[in-house]
């Protein structure tokens, strides 16, 4: 038998290093420490950022052919399809042109009225376009990872939207990528106002496989109907007011509960979307300091 056929070093009999059980205890404790640091004290952020930087070349590498593929399929659409799309876009532009031409006049009027009433002027909303790298694979949450991070000026808690409405909010910012929690995530709540009735409420995600939201704490006899449009109310200081969030699809009024069950679908295409817009975080008006009880002379 030639050399190199077998392992040349026999397995160690006596010198085995630290026992497997000690290693288990050590690394399990480290894991628990990471978890506690991540959830309770927010001290694990530098560790996360470091690991994310190490991972980002792999992430860009694995998603790059996907972007290339969609570019390619974009190139080879048939002539008829391309013509149809162009026609559709033209019609849509015509439909919107009437509204668009009135925006300037309305904004001016709005500003004058606000000045008359001595209200604070809302700041202009600015945004930047980002690309979705991939859906976060964690089955417990609904998140996507976008291809811009702290080094490109993305800030935590910036609102994110697509062409049709609110997608969610930037929740974690790494140096080169960021994580967006979608409105359909179980832990995500969006303050809304019903456009038809001007009634305020909060929609939370269902966290299910299908993107769905539920409007919570709506009285059983409240005025809410199917097909009502819900837009952001802007009182949270995160989302600018007036962005469409969801449309009501079903209202269940039951005798056994005080609240109605209101099911909505997000207006944004919460899954399968490639380009998103990250808006600048809304500047929150400075909150009044809590009264410390000190009396000023």
């Amino acid at each position, binding site marked *: 038998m030639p050399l190199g056929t077998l392992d040349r070093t026999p397995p160690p009999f006596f010198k085995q290093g630290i026992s497997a059980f000690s*290693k288990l205890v050590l*690394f399990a404790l*480290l894991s628990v420490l990471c978890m506690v640091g991540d959830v309770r004290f927010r001290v*694990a952020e530098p560790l*996360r950022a470091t690991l994310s930087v190490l991972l980002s070349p792999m992430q860009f590498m694995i998603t790059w052919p996907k972007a290339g593929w969609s570019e390619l399929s974009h190139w080879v659409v048939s002539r008829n399809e391309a013509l149809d799309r162009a026609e559709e876009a033209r019609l849509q532009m015509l439909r919107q042109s009437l509204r668009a031409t009135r925006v300037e006049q309305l904004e001016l009027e709005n500003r004058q009225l606000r000045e008359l009433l001595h209200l604070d002027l809302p700041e202009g909303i600015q945004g930047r376009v980002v690309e979705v*790298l991939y859906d976060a*694979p964690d089955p*417990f949450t*609904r998140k996507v990872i976008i291809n811009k991070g702290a080094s490109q000026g993305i800030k935590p808690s910036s609102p994110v939207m697509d062409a049709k409405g609110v997608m969610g909010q930037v929740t974690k910012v790494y140096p080169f990528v960021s994580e967006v929690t979608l409105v359909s995530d179980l832990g995500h709540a969006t303050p809304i106002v019903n456009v038809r009735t001007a009634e305020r409420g909060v929609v939370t995600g269902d966290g299910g*496989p299908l993107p769905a939201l539920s409007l919570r704490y709506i009285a059983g006899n409240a005025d809410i109907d199917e097909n009502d449009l819900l837009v952001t109310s802007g009182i949270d200081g995160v989302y600018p007011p007036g962005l469409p969030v969801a449309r009501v699809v079903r209202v269940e009024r039951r005798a056994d509960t005080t609240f109605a069950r209101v099911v909505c679908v997000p207006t944004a295409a919460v899954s399968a979307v490639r380009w998103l817009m990250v808006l600048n975080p809304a500047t929150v008006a400075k909150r009044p300091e809590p009264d410390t009880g000190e009396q000023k002379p």
Partner: protein
Amino acid sequence: MMLRDRQLLLPVKPGFIVMTLVAAFLLDMGLSAWWAGNAAWRPDFTALVLAFWIVHQPTRVGIGAAFFLGLFTDVHVSALLGQHALAYTVMAYLAVMMHRRVLWFSVRAQVLQVLPLFLVAWVISLTVRLAMGDAFPDPTYLLSPVLQALAWPLVSELMLAPQRRAPDPDENRPL
């Protein structure tokens, strides 16, 4: 087939172990980025290949490697930091404990031997997240460890192929 009847294997190259672990990680990334999204049934190939090497080469791949791979997985899937690290650590410990036993079974019977490893890792992940207040994802989540175990024979075949080459290649056995 018992261990003593088997073909003697060439020694494994450490570079190959690292390469397969990275490849499994990339496969997990690609599977979710290209096709499955965050579908709950996705098997975790990183855990599978990790368990495979711990069972076959416990002196080279161990609990430490499992912990660090777990941390990377946590960041990539944007789960709780430490969730997969804990799951992989415990899985690796159990794999080290049973590595002498597993290889005496045929590859098909090994599926039943390793299924508990993946189930334990799965239960740990689930418990951690439920304790954090997340909801149970959806029923297909139960499939994930089962699919993982079912892929064991295929992975065994692929990972051992380089070690099954003839020690003295000649005209008839070029590989």
